[in-house]
């Protein structure tokens, strides 16, 4: 997936933590092998070669999610790589294909998907304190840090803006933006690079959803009314945010937050 994944695990003997971490990394490796478009054996390569690719239930659900977010974001997020092509999902036999001449790229959702699978693997192993991130732009936390404090994320460090700080516990996040990599976000509606927002960020339960929505927010420059209420959207400004136990996102100090947007609905 073109980035380094890092896992921070705490709360048990090292032997056990290492074994749990290795299982999580295997989930990431497996996901990469399935979703990369740069290797001939991957599911995505087969789809891009024109196959009606039959996939297992879990992977089919990912393609369904990607298509749902495309609809909700009014095409601001789209895994197909050109404006005229469509993702074709056939539920009865779980086949995935793309309309003729098209191709798919799961770069905007694959990292989050891999993080979700890694987090699930860690939870199933019994891990109660962990933080997993992919290239610093997508991540998720299990529980708190070993000292009981939430995991703190800083967003927008490399932008001209003051960074936003978000504390999370049992949450996922994703940031999409141009500051670090130049203009690399493509607006799928026009197939040109977008300048709507310096960055878009999302906090929610699933890193996969956050990953896709962060891209959509960056493309749109504003939160659409169709974005699910369970997701927090964050757009540039000066503020520090805290995710409360009830899931609400509140500013630590409301006064500078006038320039920021962080809403659930």
């Amino acid at each position, binding site marked *: 997936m073109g980035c380094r994944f890092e896992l921070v695990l705490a709360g048990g003997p090292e*032997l*056990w933590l*290492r*074994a*749990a971490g*290795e*299982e999580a990394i*295997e989930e990431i490796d*497996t996901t990469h*092998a*399935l979703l990369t478009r740069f*290797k*001939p*054996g991957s599911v995505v*390569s*087969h789809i891009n*070669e024109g*196959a*009606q*690719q*039959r*996939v*297992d*239930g*879990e*992977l089919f659900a990912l393609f369904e999610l990607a298509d749902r977010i495309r609809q909700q974001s009014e095409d601001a997020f789209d895994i197909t790589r050109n404006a005229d092509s469509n993702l074709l999902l056939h539920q009865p*036999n*779980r*086949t995935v294909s793309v309309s003729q001449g098209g191709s798919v790229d799961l770069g905007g959702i694959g990292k989050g998907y891999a993080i979700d699978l890694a987090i699930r693997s860690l939870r*199933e*192993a*019994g891990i109660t304190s962990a933080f997993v991130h992919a290239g610093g732009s997508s991540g998720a936390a299990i529980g708190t840090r070993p000292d009981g404090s939430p995991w703190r994320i800083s967003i927008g460090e490399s932008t001209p803006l003051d960074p936003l700080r978000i504390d999370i516990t049992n949450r996922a996040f994703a940031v999409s933006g141009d500051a670090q990599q130049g203009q690399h976000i493509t607006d799928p509606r026009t197939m040109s690079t977008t300048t709507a927002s310096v960055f878009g960020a999302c906090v929610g339960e699933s890193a996969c959803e956050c990953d896709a929505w962060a891209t959509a927010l960056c493309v749109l420059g504003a939160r659409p009314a169709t974005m699910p209420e369970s997701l927090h959207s964050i757009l540039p400004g000066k503020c520090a945010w805290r995710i409360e136990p009830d899931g609400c996102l509140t500013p630590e100090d409301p006064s500078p937050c006038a320039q920021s947007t962080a809403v659930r609905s």
Partner: protein
Amino acid sequence: MCAIDRRSFIARTSGIAAGMALTPILGASMGRLESTVRVGIIGCGRQGRAIIAELSSFETVTIGAICDSEPRRLNAGKRRAKDAQAFADHRAMLDTGTLDAVFIATPTHLHREFATDALQAGLHVYCEAPLSNTPEDAKAIAQAARGSTNVFQAGYLARANPVYQLARTFFVSDSVRTLVAMEAVRARKTSWRTPANDAEMNKRLNWRLDPEVTTGLAGEWGSHQFDVFHWYTGKYPTRVSGFGSIRLHDDGRTVHDTISASLAFPSGEILTYNATLANSYEGAHELLRGENAAIKLAWTHGWMFKEADAPTQGWEVYANRQQFHNDEGITLIAGATKLAEQGKLKDGIGLPHTPLWYSVESFLKSVTEDAPVACSADEAFRSTIIGIRTHEAITTGRTIEIDPAELG
């Protein structure tokens, strides 16, 4: 059991040896079989889930049932095979009478019960390799398979792998000529542990680190690679020695994390084997050094390195080449001619499917189309025994003599 006669092989495959590079042997992206098959999976750990993922790509396969006594693993299997009936007990699964075939992906030492029960239930069986952790159990599986009219295939993956099949045609058709030496490596930095929350669970899940049941690196990894040499040469070692130590994972285990072994063949060749859990450089590969060329195989890729004085062969005009430090390797690409015609020769480097997919496909074709079995129980039995004996040599520090009669 005898070595393949090179001359008779050439006679039987005349026109194919060179042609294999020229003939498209890679199938369509999605598996297509002539008839439908309903399968069950026993064991939903990492390998079982990988099998589910591969099976899901076959249009005419229905995963009817999955089975695992570990609830966490059964749930993981259910997430991937959403329509399958889930069982904690394999007998209950077999008793449904609704399956045509089962895939066995349980810990090695449990294969015997599952494989023999499935064969007795009249099902076709795909059993992961090695067959078992003891010669007795491996023999029992092989005997049960021999006594059955159903298909039995063991999961020694190389035998169904198009790259390995292609390279073998070159090997047996004299491209390498006199075999000088054989080498194999498997390196991966991993603890080889599964997270377990109590001693009982640890015993159950971390069977690879349990000296009572494990066949160690030589059996679990090595036997897969030994099988490549057995398949290529038709020969088996008669003397094995080796060493092992714990180089990195000094966590209370007694099973070696690093081993080195020498397997001596009666005709003089020596297979040198190295495996480690402490470093991942070079991953996994097998190397056959010959008088005229060396063949290097690495799962999805294969290369031939020719000696300067080796005769030129016609197929080389189609070849891609890759530089490895001072050596130039000719890439062995299955279906090279078709890819060349399409201008996709470079795209063809590497397989379009995983080695596991080809093994699964091969089994399904044996079940539905009566295609030859890629790796029979008898072939798997012999490689299993070599793995067990090599592990024994390493753990005891003794040189082990292998009586050819032991291999059946």
